[in-house]
């Protein structure tokens, strides 16, 4: 039984379907990467999985259980946490308040102090900045806070929507390293949505390529990297 299993999912807005018949899975303790260019449907797919924009067709199972139409606010309780594109921080609140809101659901709330220490050990800068407003942090710090807040909810599945967006290459590396670290220590499943193909594949156990709303390729990262189509379309060689 996979941690997350999406089967023949169609998603879109109103009468418009954007993602067609997509299937993917994420196993426990594994980093799966969902790749695709602008407008491929990556965010639509992710928002459909967590229920922000409920799917038009298909099934979504988490640990074998159908989770469609559970309501987005139930996802954190179930153990699915999304770090949305653009980070979705509470800009007018302090770093600490943001982290506390991460452990809003009852089960993670019981582990709050422990999770907080873990987040600080992962990103020491957040401890220094804890009273500062989230909106006043630098881009890299904001991304760390967004990931930190997600970790505060003690997820079993962490979904990250383009965490490298707008970050300097060195920070992208820091962010990716922290994701690998979290997976290793917490043994959780990660679904990483990226445009940054090479770096994403370097940390992945499994890869998917989405194009114009359809899954065109899937497989082991080294196979994807060697694929002629991927090379031409995404790696520029």
């Amino acid at each position, binding site marked *: 039984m996979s941690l997350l299993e999406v089967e023949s999912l169609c998603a879109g807005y109103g009468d418009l379907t954007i993602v067609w018949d997509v299937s993917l899975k994420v196993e426990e303790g594994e980093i799966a990467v969902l790749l695709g260019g602008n407008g*491929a449907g990556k965010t639509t797919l992710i928002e459909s999985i967590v229920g922000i*924009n409920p799917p038009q067709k298909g099934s979504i199972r988490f640990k074998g259980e159908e989770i469609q139409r559970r309501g*987005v606010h139930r996802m954190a309780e179930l153990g699915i946490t999304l770090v*949305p594109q653009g980070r979705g921080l*509470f800009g007018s*609140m302090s770093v600490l308040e943001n982290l506390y809101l991460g452990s809003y659901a009852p089960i993670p709330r019981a582990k709050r102090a422990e999770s907080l220490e873990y987040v600080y050990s992962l990103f020491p800068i957040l401890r220094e900045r804890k009273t500062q407003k989230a909106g006043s942090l630098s881009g890299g710090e904001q991304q760390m806070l967004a990931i930190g807040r997600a970790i505060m909810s003690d997820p079993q599945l962490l979904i990250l929507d383009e965490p490298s967006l707008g970050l300097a290459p060195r920070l992208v590396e820091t962010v990716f390293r922290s994701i690998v670290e979290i997976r290793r220590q917490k043994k959780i499943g990660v679904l990483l949505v990226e445009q940054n193909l090479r770096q994403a594949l370097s940390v992945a156990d499994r890869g998917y390529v989405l194009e114009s709303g359809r899954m065109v390729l899937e497989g082991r990262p080294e196979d994807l990297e060697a694929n002629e189509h991927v090379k031409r379309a995404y790696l520029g060689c």
Partner: protein
Amino acid sequence: MADSQTEARKRSGLAVLLIMLVSLLPLVVQHGYVLRILIMISYFAVASYGWDVIGGYAGQLSLGQAAFFSIGAYAAASAYLIWKLSPAVGALAGVGLAALLALGLGSLVLRLRGPYFTLSTLAAAEVVRILLLHFKSITGGAEGRVIPYTGFNLSALQFATDRPYYYIAVALLALAIWTSYQVSRSRLGFQLAAIRNDEDAAESVGINLMSAKVKAFVISACLTALAGAFYVIYDRYIDPYSTCSSEVSVKILLIALVGGRRSIWGPLLGAVLLIPLTELTNAYFASIRAGASMVVYSIILIIVVLYAPDGLIRVLRRRPSRGAVTLQPGPKGRNSHASA
């Protein structure tokens, strides 16, 4: 420790001084018209504190507060005129009805975000006004209804002078300020702050969006209805245009906006500035053209948005607002993003 103690003593001293000042004010103010304005200030401040719960704390711009204001007003008037009950009973019933409407309407339209929510509230208030105009036998239709003065009568809340009305108004104002304070430091207040910042993110950390927003809408409706009910009990005249026009909704919103949203004193400051100003513009410009006060309002709004977007209370305190980073609805609203 000593510091916080003197601070607390200073505060309670200030509070006592304030209460004394407020209760002695009508003895000093001999002019009936001035007292009337003070009463109006209080009622519109109460309505505006109500707006601030949904529009300020939750960040959902309601332009339909007139609907709740009228429900309170018509309930108080009808209870007295039709069913011969004390208008105070009617006021309570009105608050209950407004809460029910907010629950029903909110469950539908709070799913919408940003301007879509705002437009639906505007439409809802229009519907309420049309209904009030239509059911003539109860509401009196467009001519409205006058509550006749029958001499001092405690249960009818009719008094010979304006002083008792003033004390009622101030008591309701205190209730509204207390409510605003409680919301700001409650768990609900924290949830609303998260929602105001980013609805999707708030939902993904596990906050039940609809539940929190509907709660805020209900509290907001109750306060606004309460203001409407006692406004009519004092004014003794009611018609659909004076209680349920978009002008009323705008006025309630503007008071909070000018004074300062999400602030314990903001709506009061807004009312202290805007209500006397309305009186002045009505007195001096109304004969030139109807709606001249709206022109003045608009000019004030433009000035405030340009130079004090967080409200005047924060200019006085010279402290940035907690919500300064996200005053505008973010670009991440469900309806506005088409990115994939």
